[in-house]
C-alpha cells in the first residue's frame, strides 16, 4: 500500500517535470527575441541585444531550462519581462479569484450532479429531462457564451448582480459570494449535466449488480443500500469525470473572467501571451499542470480508499 502510494507520487513528480520541459520547449520555439517586444520598435539593435543578454535568452535552451528549474526548486519562478516583478508575486495576486471561482464551481458540480443522479435513478422522469436538456446546453453553449448571456440578462438588464469586479473573501464574504454567483453559474450550468449523467449511469450499473440484490435479500434497508453500498461502488467513474471536468474548466474560467472583468489568472495569462512574457507563462504552466496532476493524484487516492481492489493494482 505504502509502496503503491510512493510509486504514484514518483510518477506524478516525473510527469510534472515532463510538463515543464514541454512548456519550456513550446514557449521557446519562437524567435526568442523578447527584448524587441519590451523595448519597442524604436530601440537600436545593440540595445535589444543587451537587453536579451540581460534576460539571459541568448543562451542555449538547455542552460536556460537548467537555470529556470533550479530556480523553481528553490521557490523562485523568475521575474516577469515586463516591470521585472517576481512571477510568483504576480501569480499570487491573481490566484485567489480564479481558484475561488473554480473551487466553488467544482463543489456545486459535485454536489448537484450527485443529487440529480440519485433523483433520476429513483424514478423522477422530470429530473431525467432536466439533465438531458442541461447536457445539450452544456455542449452547445460554452461557458463564455453563457457568461455573456447571464451578464446581459442579470447584470445589465435586471441589475441583480454586480456587473464587474471581484471582492476578496477577507473583505466581505457576502459580497465575495455575490460577485461570484454569475461566473460560477456560467461555469457549472453546462458541466453539471455531464457529471450527473456519468454518476447516474454508474449508479444504475451498480444497482443492477448481483451483490445489491443479495444484500437486499438479507434485509438491508434501501437507504443503507444506496448510501453505504451503491454510491461507494459507483463513485470512481464519477470522480474521474470530475477531474476531467476540472481541467476543462480552467479554460472556461479564463474566458469567463474576461466577461466579468475579474482580475484572475486569465487576465494575467492573456496579457503575458500578448507581450510574449515567457517567465509568467512558464509560471502558469507549472501552476496549472501541477494542479491537474495533483487533482488526478487525489482522485487516484480516493479510488484506492473507496475500492480495496484498486490498492493492489
Amino acid at each position, binding site marked *: 500500500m505504502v509502496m503503491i502510494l510512493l510509486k504514484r507520487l514518483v510518477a506524478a513528480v516525473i510527469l510534472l517535470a515532463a510538463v515543464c520541459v514541454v512548456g519550456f520547449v513550446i514557449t521557446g520555439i*519562437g524567435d526568442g527575441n523578447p527584448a524587441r517586444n519590451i523595448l519597442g520598435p524604436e530601440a537600436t539593435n545593440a540595445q535589444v541585444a543587451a537587453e536579451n543578454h540581460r534576460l539571459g535568452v541568448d543562451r542555449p535552451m538547455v542552460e536556460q531550462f537548467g537555470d529556470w528549474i533550479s530556480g523553481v526548486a528553490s521557490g523562485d519562478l523568475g521575474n516577469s519581462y515586463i516591470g521585472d516583478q517576481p512571477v510568483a508575486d504576480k501569480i499570487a495576486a491573481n490566484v485567489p479569484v480564479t481558484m475561488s471561482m473554480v473551487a466553488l464551481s467544482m463543489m456545486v458540480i459535485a454536489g448537484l450532479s450527485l443529487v440529480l443522479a440519485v433523483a433520476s*435513478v429513483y424514478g423522477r422522469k422530470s429530473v431525467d429531462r432536466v439533465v438531458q436538456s442541461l447536457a445539450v446546453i452544456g455542449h452547445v453553449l460554452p461557458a*463564455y457564451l453563457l457568461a455573456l448571456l447571464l451578464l446581459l440578462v442579470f447584470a445589465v438588464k435586471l441589475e441583480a448582480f454586480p456587473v464587474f469586479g471581484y471582492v476578496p473573501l477577507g473583505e466581505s464574504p457576502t459580497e465575495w459570494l455575490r460577485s461570484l454567483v454569475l461566473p460560477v453559474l456560467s461555469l457549472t450550468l453546462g458541466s453539471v449535466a455531464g457529471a450527473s449523467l456519468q454518476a447516474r449511469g454508474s449508479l444504475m450499473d451498480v444497482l443492477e449488480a448481483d451483490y*445489491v440484490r443479495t*444484500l*437486499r435479500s438479507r434485509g438491508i*434497508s434501501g437507504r443503507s443500500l444506496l448510501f453505504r453500498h451503491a454510491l461507494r461502488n459507483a463513485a470512481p467513474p464519477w470522480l474521474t469525470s470530475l477531474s476531467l471536468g476540472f481541467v476543462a474548466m480552467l479554460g472556461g474560467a479564463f474566458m469567463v473572467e474576461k466577461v466579468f472583468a475579474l482580475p484572475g489568472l486569465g487576465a494575467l*495569462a492573456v496579457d503575458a501571451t500578448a507581450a510574449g512574457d515567457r517567465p509568467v507563462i512558464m509560471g502558469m504552466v507549472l501552476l496549472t499542470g501541477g494542479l491537474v496532476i495533483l487533482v488526478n493524484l487525489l482522485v487516484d487516492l480516493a479510488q484506492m480508499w473507496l475500492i480495496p481492489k484498486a490498492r493492489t493494482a
Partner: protein
Amino acid sequence: MSIEISAQALDAPTRTSTFRLILRNPLSRVGVVLLVLVLCALVAAIIMDWVAPDAPWHADLYHLNEAPGTNGHFLGTDSGGRDVLARLVVATKATMFSGVIALTVAMLLGLPGGLVAGYYGGRVDMVLDWLSSLVMSLPSIVVLLAIVSSLGTSMWISMTALGCMMAPAVFRLLRAQVHAVRNDLYIDAAKVAGLSDTRIIARHVFRVVRGPLVLMVSVMAGVAITVQTGLDFLGLGDATTITWGGMLGEGFAAMSANDILFVWPGLAMAVTVAAFFLIASGARDALQHADGGSSTPARSTATHLKPVPASAQAAAPPGEDEILTVRNLTVGYPSGEDVTEVVRGASLTLRSGHTLGLVGESGSGKTQTAFALLDLLPRQAMLMEGEVWLDGTEILRLAPRERTKRVREAIAYVPQEPMSNLDPTFTIGFQLVEPLRARGIGRAEARERAATLLARMGIRDPERVMRSYPHQISGGMAQRVLIAGAVSTEPRILIADEPTTALDVTVQSEILDLLRGVQEEFGMSIILVSHDLGVIADLCDDVAVMRNGQVVETASAEDFFARPRHEYSRMLLDAVPDENHVRPEYVEAPSPRRSAKTGEIHR
C-alpha cells in the same frame, strides 16, 4: 435439425442502412436541418469571397450599431458600421476550417495510436499511455496561450496544437474499446483462421469502435469550434480573419451601445455545435440499436410488487407440513403495449424440512419464480396472478412493506455467482455482520456469530477471512461465505439459485454436502434451482420441472428419475450423457498407452 430456429429469429429485420437509421431519429433530423443551414452559409461565404470580397469589410460610418432590419442590413450593423450578416456568413469559413484542422490532427494521432496500443498492449501501450497522460496534464488553454505567445496568432498553428491536445481523448477512447474486445474469442478465432493483424483490426476491431468514434468526432468538432471562438474572443486570434470569436469580442466591447451585437455570432456558433451534437446523439442511439445494445437500461432500483387483485373466493390454506405453497403464480414484464409473461401459472409446494428441486433450462422461468418468492423481482416486473402461502399466511395480498418483512424473516437466498454477489468494497466480516446489526443484534455478538458460522462452513481461519475483501478469497470460499450469510439470519427457508454452477465439481460436491448438513442442523427447507440433474438427484426430495414459465411436472425425486411422466422430463433425462456409452479407442491396431506414473509407453 432446424427445430432450434425460432420463427422470430427468421422474421427479425436484417440490415437497414446506418444512414437511414440515423435519419429515423428525431434528434438527428433536427441536427441535419441545422447542418444544412450551416453548410449553406459556408457555400455563401465561398461565393461571397469570389463575388464581393469587400462586403464584410465595408464600414458605413454613418450607421453604427444599427438595429436589425434597418437600411438593408438584415441583422443590423456593428460598432464599426459594418454589415453583421455579411461578416457572420464569411466567418463560417474560418470556423469550419479550424474545426477540420483540429479534428484531422486529433484523428491522425489518436486513431492509429489507440488501435495499436489497445491491440498489442505491452511496451507500446505504456509509452503511448504515458504520453497521453502528459498531454492531458497540460490544460489546453495554457498550452494554446504559450503557443500563441511564441509562434503568433496563426489559426493553422493554434488549431494544430488543439488537435494534439485533443488526440489523447481519441486515443483513450479507442484504447479502452479495443482493450475490451481484444481478448474476445472472435479475435482469437480470426487469428486461428489465419487473418493478419491489420486485417483483424480493420475487420473486427474497427467495427466495434466506430459507433463511439462517431460520437466523439462530432463532440470534438464542437469543442474545436468553441475553443477557437474562445481564443478569438480573448483577442488572441488572427486579427486579419473575420471569425465568430472576433465578432463576439467586438460585440462584448460594444455591449453598452449595442447589447445584442454579441448574440449573432454566439447564435451562429451554438447552431453549428448543436448540429454536430444532435446528429451524433442520434447516430449513437441508432448504432447502439443496430448493434443489439439497449439505449434505455432496465431499472431495478427498488422492488415494488404490484398488488394482486384479491380473488373472489378465498382459497383454502395449504396443509400443515407445507411451509411454502405457490399457486398459479404469474409474473410478467411490460414489453411495449403488451405484457410478456415469464412465469405462467406456476404451482409449487415446499414440504417442511425437505428440499425441492426446481429444474429447467435457460428461459424456463425458474429464476424468476425464485425471485418472486424472495420478493426480489426488479421494479418493472408485475405479479399478475397467484397466491403464495408462507407459514399458513397468504403474503401476496399483504401490504408490500409487511410482505417484505415476512419474506426477509423467513426466506434467505444463496446466489449463483459467488464472486459477483459480494460487495467488493467491504470486508467479508462487515457484510456478514451488517444484516445481523439491521436486526438489532449488538456488534460484538454479531461478529462472534459470523465467525462461528464461518467455522461451521468449514473455513479454517474465520477471523482472517472476516478481515479479507472479496477479491482476496477463492470462489469456493466465497460461496461458503454466502451460505453463512444466508443462514445467519436463521431463516426457515433457503432458496438457492444454481448455487454450484460456477464452481468446480470437487468444490461443488463439498458445497452440496454443506447445504445438506446445514439443512439437518438448522431444520431448514430448501428450494434448489438448478439445470443440473445430477445436482438435483444429489440433494432433492421433490422435483418440479419448469418449461416456458410453466411447471410441467411435479413429483418425488425417486419417481421423477425412475418414471418421468411428462414428455419434456423424459427428453431432459435422455439428454444426460449416457454413462454406459463409451467410445472404444479409435485405432484398430494395439495402441500405445501411457502410464501416468512412469510416462513410459506400453505397446
